């Protein structure tokens, strides 16, 4: 007689609870976490995908691809695939989808995030299954970039975003009751292995403890981002989510313009304490902006030790040189960016105060936080230490460095010409050379730039009831593949 609640009955329906309702299900916005978690690989699919474990690219709607010229890539598409509306999937659709996402004026999130904004791709269709893509400049990672473009039928509007998209994925949209739930139904004509659950239903709860309660109570099977204090072995599972937290120091403003002060901050932070206590062990101290698995990760870098004495010494030294170390530094963090973000900010504030810095916390909402995160930065903000969380979904350090480390990078406050040069250089390389070049860049930032004080490589907590089997991976936060969820052994569904 257990009340069924919002998530519908358990039999045959996979019940998922999300932290927020997706604003849209538009496939070209799938790189937004809130949208992608429903859309990607469930409703629509890209040509290929990156294996979150190995970092290798795997075929999806394309069976093979190769670089046929420096500026040209060719893809062989899978045949016999149909959209939810019964239309067959052809190279025409693929070309249309790429064109729609990258070249149109829809202002999709992929456009610009994985592609440069002004980049125009030339698309050429050969038969039903052949697609050739021409790029302006040689692009060694074009397939990786294209793994963010979801395939939609030609009939999709190019002028407006769609609310209930049609795709080729294992599930199709059945209904979307605004504010209440999104229901998906199994695509019986799916080309791949059919998913186990005939239905899936997403509901939205922004309070983490309620999400946890729903799992515990058996009202939901999966729940995104739980808080560590609500997590038990029975209701959740941890997974590395590719996110890295760091303090970005605005090196244009005194006293943060002095590298000794920046380095002192690095030494003042008790990463072990923060990771062990605040983040409940669901993280690892970080020494760079990308986690292991991303091309360019430098395995030799070690996080700075917790050494308040050394930090104090550095600050004294700077003060002696006339650096105004007691100027107020604003520590800006974003509400609900990650569990216990407020506490983390408080810990940082306290630890920095301990070494003699004057730090004030300001919690901001996403919009306000973005004002500080993105160029052009607010004027007259004074010295800002911004608590950021960076997730490199693409698996290549190029995305990180161009954004965060270049002197003029959109999310970077300053840099050095040498570093900029090395970033440009590394971007053109491929293979082990690329890996080494980026690894060296991360080492260099820590050594001579120190714009970032890295905190931790984060891990997420996925709420998972005992009724289902599902192993989250580093992509789970962005795409929750329902097809990979199976009923727990012994449970007949």
């Amino acid at each position: 007689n257990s009340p069924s609640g919002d998530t519908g009955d358990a039999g045959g329906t996979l019940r998922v609870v999300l932290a927020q309702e997706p604003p849209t299900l538009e496939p070209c916005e799938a790189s937004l976490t809130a949208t992608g978690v429903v859309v990607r690989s469930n409703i629509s699919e890209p040509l290929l995908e990156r294996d979150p474990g190995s970092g290798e690219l795997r075929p999806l709607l394309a069976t093979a691809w190769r670089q046929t010229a420096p500026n040209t890539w060719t893809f062989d598409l899978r045949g016999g695939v149909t959209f939810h509306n019964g239309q067959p999937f052809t190279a025409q659709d693929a070309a249309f989808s790429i064109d729609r996402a990258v070249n149109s004026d829809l202002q999709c999130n992929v456009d610009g995030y994985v592609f440069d904004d002004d980049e125009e791709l030339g698309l050429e269709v050969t038969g039903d299954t052949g697609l050739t893509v021409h790029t302006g400049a040689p692009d060694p990672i074009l397939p990786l970039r294209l793994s963010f473009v979801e395939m939609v039928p030609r009939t999709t509007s190019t002028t407006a975003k769609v609310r209930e998209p049609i795709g080729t994925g294992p599930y199709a949209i059945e209904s979307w009751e605004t504010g209440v739930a999104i229901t998906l139904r199994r695509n019986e004509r799916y080309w791949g292995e059919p998913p186990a659950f005939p239905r899936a239903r997403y509901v939205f709860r922004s309070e983490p403890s309620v999400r946890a309660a729903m799992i515990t109570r058996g009202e939901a099977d999966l729940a995104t981002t739980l808080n560590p204090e609500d997590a038990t072995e029975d209701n959740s599972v941890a997974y590395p989510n590719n996110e890295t937290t760091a303090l970005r120091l605005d090196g244009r403003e005194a006293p943060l313009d002095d590298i000794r002060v920046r380095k002192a901050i690095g030494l003042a932070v008790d990463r072990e304490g923060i990771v062990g206590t605040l983040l409940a062990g669901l993280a690892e101290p970080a020494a760079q902006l990308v986690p292991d698995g991303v091309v360019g990760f430098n395995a030799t870098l070690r996080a700075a030790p917790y050494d308040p004495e050394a930090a104090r010494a550095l600050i004294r030294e700077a003060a002696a040189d006339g650096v105004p170390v007691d100027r107020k530094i604003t520590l800006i963090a974003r509400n609900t960016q990650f569990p216990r973000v407020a506490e983390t900010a408080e810990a940082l504030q306290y630890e920095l105060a301990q070494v003699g810095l004057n730090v004030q916390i300001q919690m901001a909402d996403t919009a306000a936080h973005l004002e500080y995160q993105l160029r052009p930065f607010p004027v007259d903000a004074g010295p800002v230490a911004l608590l950021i969380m960076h997730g490199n979904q693409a698996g290549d350090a190029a995305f990180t460095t161009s954004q965060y480390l270049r002197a003029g990078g959109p999310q970077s406050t300053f840099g050095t010409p040498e570093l900029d040069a090395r970033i440009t250089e590394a971007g053109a390389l491929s293979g082990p050379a690329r890996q080494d070049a980026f690894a060296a860049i991360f080492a260099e930032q820590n050594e001579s730039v120190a714009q970032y004080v890295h905190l931790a490589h984060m891990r997420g907590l996925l709420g998972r009831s005992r009724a289902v089997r599902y192993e989250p991976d580093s992509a789970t936060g962005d795409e929750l593949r329902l097809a990979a969820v199976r009923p727990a052994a012994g449970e007949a569904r």
Partner: protein
Amino acid sequence: MTSKTPVPARRARWWTLLGRDRFAVVAAVLLGLVLLTAVLGPLLIGDRAVRQDLRASLRPPSFDHGFFGLLGTDVLGRSVLARLVDAAGTTLSVAVPAVLCSLVIGATLGMWAGFHGGLRENVAMRVADVILSFPSLLLAVVVLYVFAPSVGNIVLILAIARIPVYLRTARAEAAELKSRLFVDAARTFGATSWPTIYRHILPIALPTLLTVATLDFCFVMLTESSLSFLGIGIQPPEVSWGLMVAQGRQYLQTAWWIAVLPGVAIVVTTVSATVLAAWVRLATDPAQRWRLTLPRRARPTTTEVTA
């Protein structure tokens, strides 16, 4: 008052009246304690409210960790006791000025509007309507994002948002009282509007306004806490009870003391304030004061004959 007749004991002293109401005594003592804590507490606790010790995170209340460990620690290993004490000051310094500001502004405007009537009344009431139908959260977000979430700004928002409540109450009272004969009488002595309001309207409207204010005192604390719930309240490392409840809510299952204790502090303070306000209401009303002066034994319960 101006004229004192040498007849003692006709008017019971207020502490005698207070003494007659056990609940009011308890409430007064509790409120006094809260006030004392807010004023003197910070001297006693030093930096204990902010001193972190990540190794002492989430200790339950116990006698094992000294005075400051009595009520346990929060996730950053800070003493909950010290934080409660520290928060008392912040909480009161938000709630009291906010309530006072809205009370003073709202009541003054309301009495003025109600006393004069006509256009002035209409304008004041429409202003109240505007504020009332305005989402105060939007105001909060704007002020707090545009002007940074300082205690002063929070006070400002809470005060503005609550002005209509007093304005309406005071206006209703004043509109009713202005047609009373004793107000006319005051006019025949030549008293102008403000002295009349001060002498005749205010004393009668005040108990009602005070009751509203104590209810509001609680409302303000809760709103401040809701702002913290939405992340736009008091900013750490400053701490208020509302912020403690808001932050501690996540730990309700694992570390109840973080959220429950400040919640209890809010409840105790507001309940005490209300009990005291009820007492003030009785004690200042000559027609009701007998309820306090009667010997407790024979205190009749209704107006029916007691024989």
